[in-house]
């Protein structure tokens, strides 16, 4: 597998010594399926990014709706008599 010429006999001897003391791992396989652990991590992230769905709803409302709501709230505060008229139009 090694694609190098190793004329160095010392290197070969060192390799043999190392391999005798530290056996190669070879084609080791994971002891169990790692997908559930990874999935847990992915879902954890999705949950944290989608945390507080209210915030997402909040962010999805266009700015002019907020402006309209602000005008209506201000009008109700300044002119409480308009409240029945506003309710009538809802």
């Amino acid at each position, binding site marked *: 597998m090694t694609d190098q010429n190793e004329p160095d006999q010392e290197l070969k001897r060192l390799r043999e*010594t190392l391999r005798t003391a530290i056996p190669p791992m070879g084609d080791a396989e*994971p002891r169990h399926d790692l997908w559930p652990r990874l999935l847990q991590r992915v879902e954890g992230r999705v949950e944290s990014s989608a945390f507080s769905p209210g915030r997402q709803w909040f962010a999805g409302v266009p700015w002019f709706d907020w402006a309209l709501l602000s005008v209506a709230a201000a009008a109700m505060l300044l002119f409480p008599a308009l409240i029945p008229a506003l309710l009538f139009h809802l």
Partner: protein
Amino acid sequence: MNVLERFAAGHLEAFEPLFRQHQAEVYRWVVRIVRDPAAAEDLTVEAFWRLYQKRGQLDPQGNCAAWLRRVATNLAIDHLRRAHPAEPLLAEPADQQRSDCVTQQETRTAIGAAMNELSPKLRAVVQLILIEEESYASVAEALGISLSAVKLRVFRATRILRKKLEERGVRP
């Protein structure tokens, strides 16, 4: 459209087939460096987690296996850096330990200690090239360095190892 193309295009359901396609290969590579099955599993999950995080920047025509191997190699080297230096080299069959004579055990201990004294980068190269007999080219690609840089690392590592072993009375 292949699995990587689908995943890069935002189809998250393609992540599982992509994982299943590469997990054994990534694990095998990592365990050869760290020699600790539990740590290798953690690092494999971490490598795929990074792939998931980078999904928006993936090249659909790119080499996913090579990308994963490079990330996993860096993670494994970081693990060696963090691991306790006195941590023994794991994954030695118990039967083999029992059958060894005292001299062999001493040699094994001396080699383990000498290996632990190598820097993580050199240790990874020794593990992959001298012990696992991986090709210089694949190690160069995984480390993101040139072939000559890998040769230099092997040369430096073997010189240090010989010196350390001789200090411990082991003559390779």
